[in-house]
């Protein structure tokens, strides 16, 4: 079974090589990409089942035993993340194929798109599965290098302006991460996460805190946590719709995943939980207030993206099983719903010629399908009761109340206010873009949206609704994952069995 673990990394990389060779044959290129991501999804589901029933699945790359060689670990958290991310990347890939076929498609299918997209997927899964701090860094670099290419796709002036901000900020955070990795090695003499878990406990507490804060800063920039989040709304909206969607869904969540992993496995005990809570509250409130001021759908969703990262950080800061479980559930929910909203923004742009709220209106009558596809995830994001957004927020707020104390109470309040303001923002978009008299920004409206684009978006909307229906079992998995994270022993024992010196 452990032979399956490297596949989510290796298959997309091989696919990238193949699609790069087959640049001249777009049809073959497309089918290879879809096949790769489909098989990654299958493998990920099998891995999740295995990790849920029998504990973490570990593979020692090259057959070297753990502290010497590098390991890939699929515990429940990592496997769950791989499942969700591969489902989302598959849907976005189908969407972008659909967009490429549309005649008025904003970007002609650039031959470089498919290989880069597959490399991005490989980077994301590598970051999730890495059992080694340096391998985590390499995963980040793979996905960043691919994302640089995707965000400046086409090389127009606007994309270069926003892309250069993104590139510089990302490189800076990588350098921070790299120096933190170097210092961790200098302090402990290892980078294997399971071994670090034991060795870091013996490091003097001041050094330990410094390392923790450096890693937290590096991951915080990647996850767009408030004081270091300003780069995100500036850089995401100008990229092509599928690219923005997959960035919004996955890249920040990889940062959140890294925060969850380091805060539980390497630095347990919640020494910085106060700081994390303050930062989480500010992220929520400042982010959503930014969204209120925006007048473009894509920028507005970028701000809600920043804002809702705060919920996940709040769960991590609580560092209780309930908080972590809520946090993981929220990551899963948010990956799905935020990607869907950006895809819908892409559909609106395709149909009405713009996503600027000042130039469009009344789309509910022009394209009822898109209106429905927007309404469901928007209400899901705002946390209207039957949806998974409500369940995720409820789980986190309950964990906050259970933790007691003044700061968690303030955070619970901030979370509620943020949820209400999200509802305000979502209904404002609904009122202006969908509910007024029809008004489209383009003279030659593209009356028929490509079926594949609508289909892929609908599939993601359905996935979001499905998360509501299977919320019970899903919460069981996340609670189980959170218990494992808190105990640390299942992970450490899986990587370093007793017989290994």
């Amino acid at each position, binding site marked *: 079974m452990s032979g399956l673990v490297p596949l989510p990394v290796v298959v997309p990389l091989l696919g990238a090589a193949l699609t790069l060779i087959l640049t001249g044959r777009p049809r073959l290129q497309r089918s290879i990409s879809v096949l790769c991501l489909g098989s990654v999804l299958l493998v990920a589901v099998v891995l999740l089942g295995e990790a849920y029933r029998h504990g973490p699945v570990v593979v020692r790359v090259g057959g070297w035993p753990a502290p010497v060689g590098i390991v890939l670990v699929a515990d429940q958290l990592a496997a769950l993340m791989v499942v969700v991310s591969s489902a989302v990347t598959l849907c976005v890939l189908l969407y972008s194929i659909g967009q490429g076929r549309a005649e008025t498609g904003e970007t002609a299918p650039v031959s470089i798109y498919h290989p880069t997209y597959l490399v991005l997927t490989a980077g994301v899964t590598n970051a999730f599965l890495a059992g080694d701090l*340096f391998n985590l860094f*390499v995963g980040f*670099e793979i996905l*960043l*290098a691919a994302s*640089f*290419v995707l965000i*400046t796709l086409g*090389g*127009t*002036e606007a994309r*270069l*302006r*926003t*892309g*250069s*901000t993104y*590139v*510089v900020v990302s*490189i*800076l955070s*990588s*350098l921070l991460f*790299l*120096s933190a*990795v*170097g*210092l961790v*090695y*200098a302090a402990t003499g290892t980078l294997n996460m399971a071994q670090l878990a034991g060795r870091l406990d013996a490091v003097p507490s001041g050094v330990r805190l410094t390392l923790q804060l450096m890693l937290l800063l590096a991951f915080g920039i990647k996850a767009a946590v408030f004081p270091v989040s300003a780069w995100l709304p*500036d850089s995401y909206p100008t990229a092509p719709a599928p690219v923005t969607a997959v960035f919004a869904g996955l890249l920040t969540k990889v940062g959140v995943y890294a925060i969850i992993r380091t805060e539980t496995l390497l630095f347990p005990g919640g020494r910085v939980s106060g700081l994390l809570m303050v930062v989480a509250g500010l992220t929520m409130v400042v982010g959503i207030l930014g969204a209120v*001021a*925006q*007048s*473009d759908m894509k*920028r507005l969703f970028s701000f809600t993206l920043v804002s809702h990262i705060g919920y996940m950080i709040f769960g991590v800061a609580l560092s209780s099983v309930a908080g972590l479980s809520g946090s993981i559930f929220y990551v899963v929910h948010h990956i799905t719903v935020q990607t869907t909203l950006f895809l819908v923004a892409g559909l609106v742009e395709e149909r009405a010629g713009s996503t*600027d*709220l*000042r130039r469009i209106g009344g789309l509910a*009558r*022009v*394209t009822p399908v898109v209106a429905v596809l927007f309404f469901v995830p928007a209400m899901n994001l705002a946390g209207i009761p039957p949806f998974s957004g409500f369940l995720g927020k409820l789980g986190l707020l309950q964990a906050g109340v259970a933790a007691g104390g003044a700061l968690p109470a303030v955070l619970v309040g901030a979370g509620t206010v943020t949820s209400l303001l999200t509802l305000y923002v979502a209904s*404002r978009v609904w*009122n*202006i873009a969908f509910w*007024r*008299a*029809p008004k*489209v920004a383009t*003279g030659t*409206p593209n*009356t028929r949206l490509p079926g594949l684009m609508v289909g892929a978006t609908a599939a993601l909307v359905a996935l979001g609704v499905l998360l509501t229906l299977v919320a019970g079992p899903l919460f069981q998995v996340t609670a189980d994952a959170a218990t494992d994270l808190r105990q640390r022993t299942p992970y450490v024992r899986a990587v370093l069995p007793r017989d290994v010196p």
Partner: protein
Amino acid sequence: MTRGAAGPTLVLVLAVGVLVATGVTLLLERSLTRILLGIILLGNGVNLLILLGGRSGAAPLAGTALAGGMSDALPQAMVLTAVVITFGLTAFLLAVAYRAWFTSGDDEVQDDLEDRQIVRLAGRDEVAAADLGGEGPDDDREQVDPEPARRRLRRDEES
């Protein structure tokens, strides 16, 4: 560089400090070329820092030196990887800077246009995209008489 298990030399530590300090200073500029130079310096500083993390000593080949006197090979391997990655990113950033200069005549990173617009709106105390409402049935001809989407749009253009 000192031989044996002594700590890192002061020169290397100072070099890391100088490289990082100049790198950060250059990063604060607006021109992409200077930012690029800053990133190169900063990257080299960080790579040196990693190198300092391991023990220095003789080449780590079995049989050539005592095990205690060998240098730690792992940081050097990490630095190699990091050098390659930094090199790739630098090349990409150079391409971006060149392309920015090619399309717009300079390689300065501009402010975000939407941001400035919203700051201006905030100064005048206005709403970004007002939902004015107030459109009664008379303002909206189609409210009474809905027709298939395609024909309706064409009529809009004519009027």
